């Protein structure tokens, strides 16, 4: 049995603006063991990035508010840490890779300096400047960029190369947990594969646990051990990757997600996308959040929020399923 690295318990996050309150993340829980990867999958606006920012405690200061729950990292609640201690966690123990490499790097600072900065902040062993510079070279080579390019500026790199630099920054202090927020969405398909492969290798090498946030089921299948499907701020189905990709029991939304992917093996004439749009997070539907779009909607779904039902570690939140037995 591996040790639990991160445990998110009943986390809820709101965004409050002058106009309305947006319920971005509602009462989610999941666990992540050391060295494992969990994929969080969902449509744009499902609350994936908000979850990641909440773990990093980087929510927009004025609007974002964590309204409940705990985030236990190595048994310690990150939400209770004062800001100056949290700062030592960021970058050193938990790192994050952002979605768009084009804007994630400071345009007026050399890439070498941006990596160096990360090392400098968490230089607990008081290494010399020389040693840190050597480490920068090493990191660049590690992500496949020649070390001589460290004095160049971000605009001199392509998108894929920039994302490599971002990864180098994130891995600089060999964190225990890496949160990757759609790390390949902004890249070309061929580059996507390269970057993913590199991340996978580095993760194995350092034994880093990872939260992979994506809307791309292909990426999940390739990289994750566990999967959590997110919809309107809730985790509606969680389980091992085999449960999700090969199991037969699924939340109707998960079925819908898979239905919208063209499959080469079964020749279908048309895709089966999910009708409708994600609900407005300021005005969530009653009962099950998915019921307005659900093809198997029942009366109870409109009024009562379904309970979590567990099948041997594979959890589904849907009225179609009851404890211990399959649904229809």
């Amino acid at each position: 049995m591996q040790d639990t690295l991160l445990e998110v318990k009943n986390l809820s996050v709101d965004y409050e603006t002058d106009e309305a309150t947006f319920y971005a993340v509602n009462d989610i829980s999941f666990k992540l063991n050391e060295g494992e990867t969990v994929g969080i999958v969902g449509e744009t606006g499902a609350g994936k990035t908000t979850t990641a920012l909440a773990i990093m405690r980087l929510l927009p200061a004025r609007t974002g508010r964590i309204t409940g729950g705990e985030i236990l990292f190595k048994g310690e609640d990150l939400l209770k840490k004062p800001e100056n201690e949290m700062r030592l966690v960021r970058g050193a123990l938990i790192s994050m890779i952002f979605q768009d490499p084009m804007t994630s790097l400071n345009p007026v600072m050399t890439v070498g300096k941006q990596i160096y900065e990360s090392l400098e902040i968490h230089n607990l062993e008081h290494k010399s400047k020389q040693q840190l510079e050597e480490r920068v070279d090493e990191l660049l080579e590690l992500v496949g960029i020649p070390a001589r390019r460290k004095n160049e500026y971000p605009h001199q790199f392509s998108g894929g190369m920039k994302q490599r630099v971002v990864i180098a920054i994130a891995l600089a202090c060999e964190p225990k947990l890496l949160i990757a927020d759609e790390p390949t969405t902004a890249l070309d398909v061929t580059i996507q594969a390269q970057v993913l492969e590199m991340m996978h290798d580095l993760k194995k090498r350092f034994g880093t646990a990872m939260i992979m946030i994506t809307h791309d089921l292909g990426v999940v299948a390739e990289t994750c051990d566990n999967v959590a499907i997110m919809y309107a701020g809730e985790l509606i189905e969680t389980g091992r990757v085999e449960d999700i990709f090969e199991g037969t029991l699924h939340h109707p939304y998960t079925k819908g997600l898979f239905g919208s992917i063209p499959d080469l093996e079964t020749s279908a004439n048309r895709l089966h996308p999910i009708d409708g749009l994600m609900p407005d997070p300021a005005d969530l539907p009653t009962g099950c959040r998915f019921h307005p779009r659900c093809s198997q909607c029942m009366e109870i779904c409109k009024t009562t929020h379904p309970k979590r039902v567990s099948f041997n570690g594979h959890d589904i939140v849907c009225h179609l399923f009851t404890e211990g037995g399959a649904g229809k």
Partner: protein
Amino acid sequence: MNGNMKDASPKKHVSLSLTEDEAVNFKKKSQLKEVWRRMRKNKMAVVGLCIFTVIVLCTIFADLIVDYDKGIDQNIEIRLQSPSAEHWFGTDMYGRDMFARIIHGTRYSFVMGIVAVIVGITIGGTLGAVAGYYGGIVDTVIMRIMDTVMCIPFMLLSLTIVSALGPGLVNVLIALMLSMVPNYTRVIRSAILTVTGMDYIEAAKSCGTPNRYIVFKHVLPNAIGTVIVQATMSVGSTIIAAAGMSFIGMGIQPPAPEWGSMLSEGREYMRYSPYIVLFPGLAIAFSALALNLMGDGLRDALDPRLKD
């Protein structure tokens, strides 16, 4: 395994039953409403709008508020008086009623600021739109000329033009107008360029929509926001510039009650009666402030991103 395809993002389905025109109108209407609603919530903008309304009312109804003659007729016996019930803002060195002069003064600098900006925008906007939309050699020629003119500081250019044309209301107006053309050409050109770079213009072009239609239906409505904000702000600075021209004797000539020339005339007497320079200055400052507040409010209302 089900998915090795890279793009598995669930497609969203929206049924579009509106025609394009209806959609544009609908968008425009609700956008205007939205901007107005946000603007009303911004206290500073409302204050600006109130001051502006008061000044506009003064301009229109100046004769009903106070007699023009009171601000022109000289009466040495009551010169340099402090504010009183009879002379709200006191009297100047010739015994003229300052309140009457200030109220009737709205018809000079304030109106000049607005007129100069409107004409300046029309000329500059046309040039900028032509440069931005057609590009190529037209763009290069127009912009080279404008860049050169812009190397001459605004006030200096206006002064040079006035010195060639001679002082006077109309000449100052022409000078201010011409001096702001290059700036507007630039602003509108870049607004047009930003908009023409957008995907929806590409989309309209690829559908074979005629150029004229694109410019009027898509480009201008979307560039207008930036222009309105810019214009509102620059009315404020133009009022100050117009008053400044009169202050140095290049603008409207005495005895016309122009705020700038009132300051310049009153300078010698301010040690005896500070009110003589206080009120005309306040009038200029409040006019400029009203427009700056409105411009700020408009900008925030059009671009709410900056607020949170």
